[in-house]
């Protein structure tokens, strides 16, 4: 019921206060049992946000340095570094699919970037630092190829996204390990990255006081803006939502379903490779584990941010909120010295609860 109000309202005029006022008006028209149900729905639908806000308050009281300037800048930077992969995987989720190969695609992109932009090249002995634009193009091409393979298998053979991307994930992992064994490298961690590469990505954008904000924060904002335009202002974006909410209906109304699916996955692949390019310079040491499990974080962030597994539902602003909230909570748990092994269990529970809330919203809406 709440959903209905918001939709009919947003067609009239947009604005957060108008929305809230309409909600209050709606609440006032309700009586007794309906009112109780409305409050229950509100609490359950926003359970994740309520818990996160409470957790932030709890952590800030226990460890005051959590809300210090350097900590906040750190959270924003980490959010920016994880945003592109989430923007990519969100498209796959809007198509009522998913992509669990994302993390390994990030890893492969980081390895390629690292191997071509190192001052002590062991993978290709004797080869110097390659020009940055060339490397960016190579990395993007590899990402696009991965996305194309995923999208093609899904669109052409109607394979389940989990099956396709699980196999891609393993193939990519093997490729990363073999790639790191090439030349004289023998599987070692890639480091001593070129100054130009590190500076381009992780150099200082500006400083607040003594805390430096890295450049990739700006790049993440640009990528989010580009994705917003693609999602909201282009035919591809409109087709993506149409295919996600009802593939047959989209097909009947003349949408090229296969092309849409492939393009969305190619776009996602490019986003993963950009994430990998950033991650390489950000952590400055790249190995076979780089990018491991990134897709889990990205998918969890999307679901928290309201990109639904139902398909055809999602907003860029929601994805940004999701990534930010997830980053805040995990940085916070780190400040509480919560065991890293337990973080995996908590991530699993976050995905489970977020999906339960997601399904609940859909079931209760009439």
């Amino acid at each position: 019921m709440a959903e209905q109000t918001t939709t009919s309202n947003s067609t009239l005029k947009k604005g957060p206060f108008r929305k809230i006022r309409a909600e209050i008006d709606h609440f006032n028209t309700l009586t007794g049992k309906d009112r109780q149900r409305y409050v229950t729905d509100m609490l359950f639908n926003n359970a994740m946000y309520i818990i996160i806000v409470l957790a932030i308050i709890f952590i800030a009281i226990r460890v005051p340095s959590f809300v210090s300037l350097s900590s906040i800048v750190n959270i924003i930077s980490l959010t920016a570094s994880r945003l592109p992969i989430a923007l990519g995987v969100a498209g796959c989720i809007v198509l009522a699919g998913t992509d669990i190969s994302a993390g390994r695609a990030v890893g492969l992109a980081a390895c390629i970037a690292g191997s071509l932009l190192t001052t002590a090249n062991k993978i290709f002995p004797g080869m110097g630092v390659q020009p940055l634009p060339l490397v960016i193009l190579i990395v993007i091409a590899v990402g696009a190829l991965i996305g194309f393979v995923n999208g093609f298998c899904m669109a052409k053979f109607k394979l389940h996204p989990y099956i396709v991307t699980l196999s891609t994930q393993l193939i990519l992992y093997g490729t990363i390990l073999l790639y790191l064994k090439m030349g004289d490298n023998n599987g070692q961690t890639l480091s001593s990255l070129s100054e130009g590469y590190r500076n381009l990505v992780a150099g200082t954008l500006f400083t607040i006081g003594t805390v430096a904000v890295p450049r990739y924060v700006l790049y993440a904002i640009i990528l989010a803006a580009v994705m917003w335009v693609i999602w909201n202002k282009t035919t591809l974006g409109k087709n993506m939502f149409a295919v996600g909410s009802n593939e047959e209906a989209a097909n009947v109304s003349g949408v090229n379903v296969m092309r849409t699916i492939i393009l969305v996955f190619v776009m996602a692949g490019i986003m993963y490779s950009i994430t990998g390019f950033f991650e390489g310079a950000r952590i400055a040491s790249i190995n076979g584990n780089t990018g491991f499990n990134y897709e889990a974080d990205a998918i969890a962030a999307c679901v928290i941010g309201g990109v639904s597994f139902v398909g055809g539902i999602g907003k860029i602003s929601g994805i940004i909120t999701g990534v930010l909230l997830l980053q805040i909570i995990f940085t916070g748990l780190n400040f509480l010295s919560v065991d890293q092994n337990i973080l995996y269990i908590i991530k699993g529970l976050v995905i489970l609860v977020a999906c339960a809330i997601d399904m609940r919203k859909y079931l209760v809406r009439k």
Partner: protein
Amino acid sequence: MSEERHSETPELRGLYRHVNISVRTLDIIIVAGIAAMIILVVWSASGGGYSVRFDSRGGSDVPAQSVRYGEAVAEPAPPERNGYSFGGWYVDEAYSVPWDFQTNRVEGDLTLFARWIPDSQS
């Protein structure tokens, strides 16, 4: 109430297609999941913090420490090894990043590696 609401709603689509679950069950999952998260966090946060292990790489054993986030590691007595002299603690096995006990702070579980410099053979 939840049964009645469930029957009125369309079938779940997308990745949830074929899922057959009532709103009531979902409510239980949400509450139980959140409760489990809170218990895990509180239980783990009240523990000793992150474990810092010392891999003495063939030298004498160095006991592990529990250190909370943002604190420094107490510098242990240097380990000993026959025929080698101790060359400090490093973050990685390749000995590229040394650990500075004065300035470095713990941000998670940590293993430090001992570096050994062979005594000059004469």
